[in-house]
């Protein structure tokens, strides 16, 4: 699935370090195609991260986040079996999501 968020999490002393990758063109809206036509802006605007359905981090992004965005953060009070879930919404309303079980 193209809209999957790939997530890796590692627990050290109760702290989960979460790394995630999203698949998205992150078009700024200022680039032109080969014929000189503007390529419309298409980028992720909002990201939310959850630990077992509790929101731990949200992000607002502009078009200047790199293509196929990378996001890493650290979660407190993490235990093996906790589920990390990340969702995104882009400026066209498209969504993506992914989850990973912490080990």
């Amino acid at each position, binding site marked *: 699935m193209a809209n999957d968020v790939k997530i890796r999490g590692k627990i050290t002393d109760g*702290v989960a370090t979460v790394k995630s990758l999203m698949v998205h063109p*992150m078009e*700024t809206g*200022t*680039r*032109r*195609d080969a014929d000189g036509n503007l390529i419309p802006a298409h980028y992720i*605007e909002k990201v939310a*991260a959850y*630990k077992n359905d*509790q*929101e*731990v*981090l*949200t*992000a*607002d*992004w*502009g*078009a*200047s*986040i*790199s*293509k196929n*965005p*990378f*996001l*890493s*953060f*650290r*979660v*407190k*009070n993490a235990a093996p079996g906790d589920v990390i879930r990340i969702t995104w919404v882009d400026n066209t309303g498209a969504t993506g999501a992914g989850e990973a079980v912490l080990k």
Partner: protein
Amino acid sequence: MALNRRKWITSMATAGAAVLLPLRLLADTAAAFKAADANTALKQLFGDLPVEESTAIEFKIPDIAENGAVVPVTVSTDMPGVRNISIVVDENPNPLSASFNISPEAFADVSTRVKMGNSSVVHAYVRTADKVYTTSKEVKVTIGGCGG
């Protein structure tokens, strides 16, 4: 009784407006991302909160970015009560790149990758309850990331 109820409704409406108004003045994230200059973006993001330089922010970004399309950035701090971390690239068409809301369940430690069209000063902002702390770094870009 009817009069009392009307009074009550009016007072509640006024109180509601009074609560909403400062919030609106304080933060308009969508507008902040559309702002074409860094100062406007900051005003819309943080309102009138005082902004202070700080050495307590760890700001990792390369001095020289060979590829402006992918510039890795990490902002972290041990400060307590951090609510938001934001990244601003002065020379980008829309300087505000990312704004992270940190819950008490997460550390003030985020990493991502940003695009940079040109060499620019890049700022990290860390917002606590009543203050904004900042640090900045100059990043040289050899190949821009916003061209075709």
